[in-house]
C-alpha cells in the first residue's frame, strides 16, 4: 500500500520552523552552557526573531494555501507575523534586566516566548479550525507557564492557575463550538469550504448559530471581552510584568487575528446574526473596561482594564465587518502593540527592583525627577487615550470611520464617548507625573540599555505611524482583499 504525501514547501511555514528551532537551540545552549551564564538565550531569541522577520518579509505578496490547505500564506497573516515578531522582540528587550532582578533570567523563558509566538503565527495563518485550536493551545500553554514563572510568588501562581482553569474552561466551549460547526458544515472544518456549506437556509442553521455562539465565547475569552474578561485584571496583575506586556499585546493580537479570519472568512452569510451580538459585546466591553479602570490604583491592573477597553474598540472594527474595519483592526493592533509595550516598559523601569513600585502614586513627581521617562510615559498615555498626532488617534479614527461607514453611528458615538472617559485615567498618570510632588524618595530609576532602546523604538513608532499612517494603510488594505465576504 502506498501513501502519497501531498507536496508542500517548508518555506511557507518558514518563520514557525525558525522560531521553533531557535527555541530548541536556546534550551540546548542552556543545557550545555556552564552554570549561571545566560547571556546566550536572549541573544539567540532576538536572532531567531530577526531571521523569522526576514523570512516573513521574503514571503510577502505570495498568496496561497499550503500543507494540504492547512495554512494560508497571505499578507493578512504575514502582517500579523510582523506584529508578533515585533511584540516578542520588544518583550525580550524589556525582560532582560527585569528577570535578572528576580533571579529568574531562565533560558526556558525565552524559549517559551518563541514557542508562544509560533502559536500566535499558527493562529493567524491557519486555514483549518484544528490549526486554530492547536495554535491557540500552543500559545496558551506557553503563556500559562510564563504567567506562573515566579513560582515562589503567590500572586504569580494564582494568576497562572486562574488563567489555566478559565482558559481550559473557555477552550472547551470553543471546541464544542467547533464540533457543532463540524456537524453543521457536514463534516468539514476548512475555513474556505465553510461559506459554501453554511450559505442559504440549510436545515442545520441552528447548529451553525450554536457554533457561532460558542466560538464567540472562545475568542471572546482570549480577547478579554465582557463578560469573558474577568480573568484579565487578576492575571495581568499577578503575572510578571514583562509577561503581562506580552499577553496584552501578543495574545490579544493573535486572538483577534484568528477571530477576524474565522468570522470574516467563514460566516459572511450570517453577518446579521453575529454583528448584533458583537455590537453588544463591544459596547459592554469598552464601557466596563473604561469605567472600572478609573478606580484602579495599581498601574498594571489599570492597564489591564485599559486593555479590556481596547478590546472593546477592536470589537467595533469586527462589528463594522467591512474592509475598512479589517484594515483598522490590523492598524490598531500594531499601534496598540507599540504603545502598550512602551507603557509596560516604563512600568518596569519605574517598578525599580522586583516591581517594588506598582502603585500609580509612585509616579508622582516623575516629571521632575526623570523628565525623559515621564515624557515617554505621557506620550504612551496620550496615545492610548487616542489623542493626535499619535498612532492611537489614527487607529481610533480608522475604527470609528469603519463603524460609521457601516452605518453604526451610535456605536461610533458610544465609542468616542468612551474614549473621553478613558482620557480621565490616562490623564491621571500625567497629572501625577507632572502636577504632584513625589511623596517619598523612591530612589533613582536605572536605565538598562535594552529597555531604553525599547522605549525609544516604541515612542518613535507611535509618533511615526501616527503622523504617516499611509504606508501601513496600504499594506493592510491589500492584505484584507482575501476576505471576499467584505
Amino acid at each position, binding site marked *: 500500500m502506498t501513501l502519497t504525501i501531498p507536496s508542500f514547501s517548508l518555506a511557507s511555514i518558514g518563520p514557525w520552523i525558525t522560531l521553533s528551532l531557535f527555541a530548541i537551540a536556546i534550551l540546548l545552549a542552556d543545557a550545555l552552557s556552564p552554570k549561571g551564564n545566560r547571556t546566550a538565550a536572549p541573544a539567540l531569541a532576538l536572532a531567531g526573531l530577526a531571521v523569522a522577520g526576514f523570512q516573513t518579509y521574503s514571503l510577502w505578496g505570495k498568496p496561497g494555501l499550503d500543507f494540504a490547505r492547512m495554512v494560508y500564506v497571505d499578507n493578512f497573516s504575514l502582517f500579523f507575523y510582523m506584529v508578533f515578531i515585533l511584540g516578542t522582540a520588544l518583550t525580550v528587550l524589556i525582560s532582560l534586566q527585569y528577570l535578572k532582578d528576580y533571579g529568574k533570567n531562565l533560558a526556558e523563558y525565552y524559549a517559551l516566548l518563541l514557542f508562544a509566538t509560533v502559536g500566535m503565527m499558527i493562529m493567524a495563518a491557519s486555514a483549518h479550525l*484544528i490549526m486554530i*485550536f*492547536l495554535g491557540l*493551545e500552543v500559545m496558551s*500553554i506557553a503563556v*500559562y*507557564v510564563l504567567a*506562573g514563572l515566579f*513560582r*515562589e*510568588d*503567590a*500572586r504569580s*501562581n*494564582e*494568576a*497562572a*492557575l*486562574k488563567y*489555566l*482553569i478559565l482558559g*481550559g*474552561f473557555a*477552550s*472547551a466551549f470553543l*471546541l*464544542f463550538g*467547533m*464540533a*457543532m460547526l*463540524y*456537524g453543521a458544515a*457536514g*463534516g*468539514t*472544518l476548512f475555513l474556505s469550504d465553510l461559506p459554501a456549506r453554511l450559505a442559504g437556509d440549510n436545515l442545520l442553521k441552528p447548529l451553525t448559530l450554536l457554533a457561532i455562539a460558542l466560538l464567540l465565547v472562545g475568542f471572546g475569552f482570549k480577547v478579554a471581552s465582557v463578560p469573558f474578561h474577568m480573568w484579565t*485584571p*487578576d492575571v495581568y*496583575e*499577578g503575572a510578571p510584568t514583562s509577561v503581562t506586556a506580552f499577553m496584552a499585546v501578543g495574545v490579544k493580537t493573535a486572538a483577534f487575528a484568528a477571530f477576524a479570519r474565522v468570522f470574516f472568512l467563514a460566516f459572511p452569510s450570517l453577518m446579521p446574526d453575529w454583528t448584533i451580538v458583537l455590537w453588544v459585546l463591544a459596547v459592554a466591553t469598552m464601557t466596563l473596561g473604561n469605567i472600572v479602570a478609573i478606580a484602579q490604583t495599581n498601574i498594571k491592573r489599570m492597564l489591564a482594564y485599559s486593555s479590556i477597553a481596547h478590546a472593546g474598540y477592536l470589537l467595533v472594527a469586527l462589528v463594522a465587518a467591512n474592509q475598512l474595519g479589517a484594515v483598522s483592526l490590523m492598524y490598531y493592533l500594531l499601534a496598540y502593540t507599540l504603545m502598550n509595550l512602551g507603557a509596560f516598559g516604563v512600568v518596569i523601569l519605574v517598578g525599580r527592583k522586583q516591581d517594588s513600585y506598582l502603585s500609580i502614586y509612585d509616579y508622582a513627581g516623575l516629571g521632575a525627577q526623570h523628565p525623559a521617562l515621564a515624557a515617554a510615559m505621557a506620550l504612551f498615555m496620550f496615545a492610548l487615550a487616542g489623542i493626535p498626532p499619535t498612532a492611537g488617534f489614527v487607529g481610533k479614527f480608522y475604527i470609528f470611520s469603519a463603524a460609521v461607514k457601516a452605518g453604526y453611528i451610535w456605536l461610533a458615538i458610544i465609542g468616542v464617548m468612551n474614549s473621553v472617559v478613558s482620557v480621565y485615567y490616562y490623564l491621571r498618570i500625567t497629572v501625577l507625573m507632572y502636577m504632584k510632588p513625589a511623596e517619598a524618595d523612591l530612589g533613582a530609576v536605572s536605565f538598562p540599555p535594552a529597555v531604553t532602546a525599547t522605549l525609544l523604538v516604541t515612542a518613535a513608532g507611535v509618533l511615526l505611524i501616527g503622523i504617516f499612517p499611509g504606508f501601513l494603510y496600504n499594506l493592510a488594505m491589500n492584505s484584507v482583499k482575501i476576505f471576499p465576504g467584505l
Partner: protein
Amino acid sequence: MVVPVSYYLALSIALFALGVIGVLIRRNVLVILMCIEMMLNAVNLAFIGFADYFKAVDGQMFVFFVMTVAAAEVAVGLALIVAIFRNRATVYVDELNILKW
C-alpha cells in the same frame, strides 16, 4: 441498526454540562481539572458522533488532537498545582484570591 447522531450529541451535551457544573462548584483544583477533562471528552464524543454520521474520518482526527492538547494542559496544570501547593499548602481555589478588584 445504527445509533442516531442526536443520541451522541445528547450524551455529549449532558457530559459537558456535568463537567461545567463540576468546574463551577468544586473547590479542589484537581477535581476542577478533571471536570475540564470531562468537558473535552464530551466534545470528543460529539465529534465522533458526527464523524460516524458523515462517515468522515477527519472528525476522529480532531479527537486525536484534542486528546493531545488535553494531555498537555493536564501536564502543565498539575505542575502548576504542585508549585502552588508548595507555597500555599492548599488546593482549594476559593483560597486563592489575593488578586481581586
